[in-house]
């Protein structure tokens, strides 16, 4: 099949077949066409050419509800749950079939809850979905698909939001589903997870099928090569520049959004020319700590000092975890989004007025330097891919040459090339003498970047020793 979106060839004559009793992973970088592929199979997207057949019978293209009835279930990356409904209500809603005049919630939700029991999942039917942690929400999303006993399951990036322990459990469930003789299709871009879960791997690159291989016949290096075309060269660790006294935090306490004490007495030193990694499972107070360090969130108690003095007008760069919520004004243009950080630069202003031409060329220079894929600086940032949106945030933050850089999961959702680019930029900030606090749930990232790593758990920081030990501790 082929599919074109504007100037982007999302799928270019891709042919694939999937066998029952097999976990077939489809890999590729952002924009490689993975999501388009599954969206076609689930009936959400009509391809320009090509067809999808189940046992030799073509499926109705572009008709998701009919595809569902044929036993094709998609587990969406962005959950399709009603947040204010209970688990039972969500499951009943998904199981409803026309005619919908008869509505017996308990009866409708029963099969899904029964599946939960079989899988060993402790799901409370009365819990409201919006009150549940994200991992539990995903279980509900999966249960919706399983209730129908569908022979074909499409998982779209299921691990993106999960902790390592939750990923382990998901892999177990995916294996169990495979052993029941289903076709399991797994969309992913993280190699380590794919090698845990898949039996067969297909790689897409820029819409083209690059290779298909059984897992046993290949290895991560080869797959990575297929994905990016050439392996990113890991930047050599540069000589440690003269370190100096930087940020010093004592007994910091910070309140979370729900009034709980999210950070409970943290002591932290981040020197100039040093990257301090802060790892841990999501939701242990990292975001609150990062926001307090970035002076965005009020702290309840404790002291923050820079070289023994209050922070004052220290240049702080903050790369937030959620670029869409905290990083970007989506309806504004790329250059305006860059200007959000650059609006204090004297060369972009004449008195209170903005210098349009100077801003344009400044933004275009940033776009070129950070290799951001956009036609014009005046294009809205909404139209950019996730990776390029992240580059907009990273570029404007690092361009300001911050003394203190706080980055939270700066490469989440980025493809390998973009991620290694962002890593290089963070390193060069360190070489420039910045003190860097890197919050990441990705242990590989911490191992690669951080000079030393601390571990955050229930609002407290603990020495993590070297990164390998941290990996061992999490597994």
């Amino acid at each position: 099949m082929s599919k074109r979106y504007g100037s982007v060839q999302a799928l270019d004559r891709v042919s694939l077949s999937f066998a029952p009793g097999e976990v077939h992973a489809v890999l590729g970088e952002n924009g490689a066409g993975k999501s388009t592929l599954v969206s076609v199979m689930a009936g959400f997207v009509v391809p320009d050419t090509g067809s999808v057949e189940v046992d030799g019978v073509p499926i109705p293209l572009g008709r998701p509800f009919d595809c569902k009835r044929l036993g094709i279930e998609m587990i969406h990356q962005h959950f399709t749950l009603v947040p204010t409904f209970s688990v039972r209500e969500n499951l009943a809603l998904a199981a409803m079939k026309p005619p919908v005049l008869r509505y017996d919630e308990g009866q409708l939700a029963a099969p899904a809850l029964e599946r939960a029991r079989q899988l060993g999942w402790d799901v409370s039917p009365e819990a409201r979905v919006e009150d549940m942690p994200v991992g539990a929400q995903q279980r509900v999303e999966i249960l919706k698909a399983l209730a129908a006993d569908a022979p074909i399951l499409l998982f779209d990036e299921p691990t993106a939001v999960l902790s390592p322990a939750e990923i382990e459990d998901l892999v177990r469930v995916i294996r169990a589903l495979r052993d029941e003789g289903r076709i399991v299709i797994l969309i992913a871009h993280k190699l380590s997870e794919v090698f845990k879960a898949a039996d067969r791997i297909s790689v897409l690159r820029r819409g083209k099928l690059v290779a298909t291989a059984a897992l046993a016949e290949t290895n991560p290096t080869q797959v990575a090569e297929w994905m990016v075309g050439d392996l990113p060269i890991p930047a050599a660790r540069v000589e440690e520049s003269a370190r100096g006294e930087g940020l010093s935090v004592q007994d910091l306490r910070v309140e979370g959004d729900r009034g709980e004490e999210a950070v409970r007495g943290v002591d932290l030193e981040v020197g100039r020319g040093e990257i301090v990694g802060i790892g841990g499972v999501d939701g242990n107070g990292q975001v609150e700590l990062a926001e307090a360090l970035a002076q965005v969130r009020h702290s309840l108690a404790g002291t923050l000092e820079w070289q023994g003095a209050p922070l004052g007008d220290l240049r702080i760069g903050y790369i937030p975890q959620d670029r869409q919520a905290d990083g970007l004004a989506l309806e504004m243009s790329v250059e305006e989004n860059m200007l959000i950080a650059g609006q204090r630069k004297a060369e972009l202003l004449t008195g209170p007025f903005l210098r349009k031409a100077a801003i344009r060329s400044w933004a275009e220079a940033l776009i070129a330097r950070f290799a951001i894929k956009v036609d014009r600086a005046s294009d809205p940032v909404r139209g950019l891919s996730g990776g390029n949106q992240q580059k907009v945030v990273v570029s404007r933050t690092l361009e300001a040459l911050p003394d203190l850089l706080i980055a939270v999961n700066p490469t989440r959702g980025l493809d390998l090339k973009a991620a290694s680019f962002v890593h290089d930029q963070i390193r060069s900030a360190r070489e420039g003498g910045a003190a860097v606090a890197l919050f990441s749930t990705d242990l590989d990232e911490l191992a690669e970047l951080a000079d030393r790593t601390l571990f955050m758990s229930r609002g407290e920081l603990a020495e993590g020793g070297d990164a390998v030990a941290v990996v061992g501790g999490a597994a």
Partner: protein
Amino acid sequence: MRAAVAQGALVVFGLVAVLVGTLLAFGLPVGPSLELIGQGAFGDKFGIARTAVKATPLLLTGLGIVVAWRARMYNIGGEGQFLAGALTGATIAKFALGVAPAALANVAILAGSVVGGALWATLAGWLSVRRGVDVVISTILLNFIAIEGLSWAVSGPLQEKKRQLPLTEALPDAAMLQRFDPQTDLHSGVFIAVVLAIAVYVFLFRTRVGFRLRVVGENERVARVNGMDADRIRLGAMALSGALCGLAGGVEYVGIAGQLSAKFSQNWGFLAIPVALLGALHPLAVIGSAAYFGALFAGSENLARFTPAGSTLVYVIQAVAVLAYVALRSWKARPPAGESE
């Protein structure tokens, strides 16, 4: 450029289509009705002056709405701020006239209307920023207070000297805005409004403070994360919004009415919202949408002389135009089928 012209043509076509559709729905003969409306709005110098005079308060209050809404402060209180501005102006008139020269009084009245409107809106802004009171609610309620306040004032402290009618003392001609032609109502407030539209455009799109205001409106968290004082910016946006709406009241007072009654405002502050929306919250486009509705007011007055539907028609058309616009926007903003990634 060409695309902009094409889009402009499309908008004009759409507005005319809305007009024709409404006429049809009312069962009015389209051709003659359009002729009457066109005659009333543009037919002669009287028509053009009427259109401009009706568009002026719409433009000023519309600009006020634009400024507030751009900062995501959904100010519904244009009416209250309009009246607060006019009341402040009338209060100043009561004390200044006879003491100060009339020309100076004129300036003082306008300045007072700016301050009065700004304070009325700032009250809602302050409640929102410091106390978390929804601006929509507070501005609506402040409208009621201003409306009742006006009724009380014109039959109480600000009533004319003879104390017969619920009106304020009429201003002497010297204290009114300049008129250009003794036969029409065209006054210099029209040009004040257009100049301010350009000024608001420059402010929003060409200054740093305006840029910050738009960032706060687009994404408050981003603004805060980048060290912008979102509360102060919002408060400022409300003050500026109220200042523009208040000035509209002042201009209407010293430009047209010359005295206040309980019926002083013809819902200008409410109509500002559709005007601003139809102008896509863009100050320069609001000139166009204010002119469109101004022309409709002027034209439908003419139509009303021949059909009883005429006077209400303009409100129906306004509502239809805004609904059509909102529908079009949400249709355009719908997620494309099968979004990738």
